[in-house]
């Protein structure tokens, strides 16, 4: 039994890894296509039909390009930096519930790699570690632009982490549980948290843009000021790891938003659909599979939203960014906690 469990876990981890990498890879393609669409261009269309092989070509380039490590850099930390960024990005997808329970041959299989009691704290902890990859990489390069980018990244990430944590607390007050599976189960049907937490969602959304260093919060790597920011000196596979980590972070941020606020794998009338089947096992499996599709549809929508915003909004100035984080989002998040507390006691 033990070994069966282990094999199942290993397979599931591989599947999650595969999905994460696939989505991250094709996010690069989607980003260019979305950019092209918004700017009325064609976008990549040479490699394969509709340019679908473009990400593979890019990956190949990452492998075959020559790499140089600056002579004055700290060699060891220069290599560790992108590694940390990538490992941290991969770790965060572990607790996300991609679907409900599947029943195969009498076995109940939850479509979630790890169900821990502290799922939300786990994600919060992993997010708070994300800053090391950028900081260490930027510092090890011994380049002034990299260092500036790294310090900006660190300051920005920690500033927005606070507001993010506070918006999570408002959600916890409603759900009373840190487990992502329970949070997902409580939003059955159309009882999504977004209806109760619109302000919290906006705060969380803004913070996840800042945490993933996406436009309009891409100050750590803004080309016009800092060349490439913390990855100015990076090339070849190590640059690839940094860029890849960013897309994985976008994927995870989208998944977390879908789970916390948009009902994860739940969709309206799922109970009616479940009862429409005479065999409960078949009904359960059909609903679960549709739920997985719904979950991914929500995730893809958020990924698209990230790209949409990137090609729509201009970049903040650094003082505006700090002002937004400390003087607008944190007071708003505290207000949101108080409102949520009062609301629960008055209306529940």
């Amino acid at each position, binding site marked *: 039994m033990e070994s069966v469990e282990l094999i199942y876990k290993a397979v599931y981890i591989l599947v999650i890894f595969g999905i994460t990498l696939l989505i991250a890879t094709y996010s690069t393609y989607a980003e260019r296509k979305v950019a092209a669409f918004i700017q009325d261009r064609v976008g990549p269309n040479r490699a394969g039909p509709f340019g679908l092989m473009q990400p593979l070509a890019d990956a190949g380039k990452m492998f075959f390009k020559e790499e140089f490590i600056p002579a004055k850099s700290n060699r060891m930390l220069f290599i560790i930096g992108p590694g940390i960024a990538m490992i941290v990005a991969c770790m965060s997808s572990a607790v996300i519930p991609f679907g409900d329970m599947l029943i195969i041959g009498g076995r109940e299989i939850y479509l979630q790699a790890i169900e821990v009691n*502290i799922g939300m*704290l786990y994600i*919060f*902890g992993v997010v708070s570690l994300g*800053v*090391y990859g950028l900081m260490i990489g930027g510092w090890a390069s011994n380049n002034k632009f990299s*260092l500036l980018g*790294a310090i900006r990244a660190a300051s920005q990430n920690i500033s927005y*982490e606070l507001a993010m944590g506070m918006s999570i607390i408002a959600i916890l007050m409603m759900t009373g549980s840190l487990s992502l599976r329970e949070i997902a189960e409580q939003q059955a049907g159309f009882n999504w948290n977004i209806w109760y937490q619109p302000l919290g969602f906006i705060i969380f959304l803004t913070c996840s843009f800042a945490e993933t260093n996406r436009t309009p919060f891409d100050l750590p790597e803004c080309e016009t000021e800092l060349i490439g920011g913390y990855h100015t000196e990076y090339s070849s596979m190590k640059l690839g790891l940094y860029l890849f980590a960013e897309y994985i972070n976008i994927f995870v941020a989208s998944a977390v938003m879908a789970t916390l606020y948009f009902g994860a794998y739940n969709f309206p009338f799922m109970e009616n659909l479940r009862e429409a089947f005479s065999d409960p096992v078949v009904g359960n499996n059909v609903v679960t599979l549709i739920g997985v599709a719904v979950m991914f549809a929500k995730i893809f929508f958020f990924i698209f939203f990230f790209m949409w915003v990137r090609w729509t909004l201009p970049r903040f100035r650094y003082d505006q960014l700090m002002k937004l984080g400390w003087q607008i989002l944190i007071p708003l998040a505290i207000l949101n906690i108080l409102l949520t507390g009062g609301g629960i006691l008055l209306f529940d």
Partner: protein
Amino acid sequence: MTESLFYFLASLTLLCALMVVISRNPVHSVLFLIITFFTISGHYILLNAQFLAAVNIIVYAGAIMVLFLFVIMFLNMNKDSESRVKTSTLSKFAGTIAGGLLFVIMVAAVKDTTIAGYNADTFTSQTGMVETLGAVLFTQYLLPFELASVLFLVAMVGAVMLGKKEAGEQHF
């Protein structure tokens, strides 16, 4: 299984903690310290204190170590300035004595402790859970909890005082 995991984690913790002290490059020291915090979190998980494990990572590895990294990165730490600092024999001697005394005190303190063990009837594995902790914090330990917020206020005032602007300060 759990026991061997414990010994593995414990030796890893000790090794990393040693590396913090031994490493010549302070940034390496910080990295090893982060790994040490991770292994300590691993110990908490073995004790089923999940909340402590997560908070240990969030606060220590995620926040305090960022501050450490900031400080170390902002120190003017060139290769030549490093070699310029010479530790005199006297300070080495003093360091050895101070460290040795601390070690003696720790041995003396640990020597007299006994492991209380646990009563199988009253023991619950849920002690370290978030919910239990929250309930205890808001009933039994209410006053310390509220006093902690005053402590935070003092810390905040201290932080603000530390960061006081000085005349002629350069920004970039």
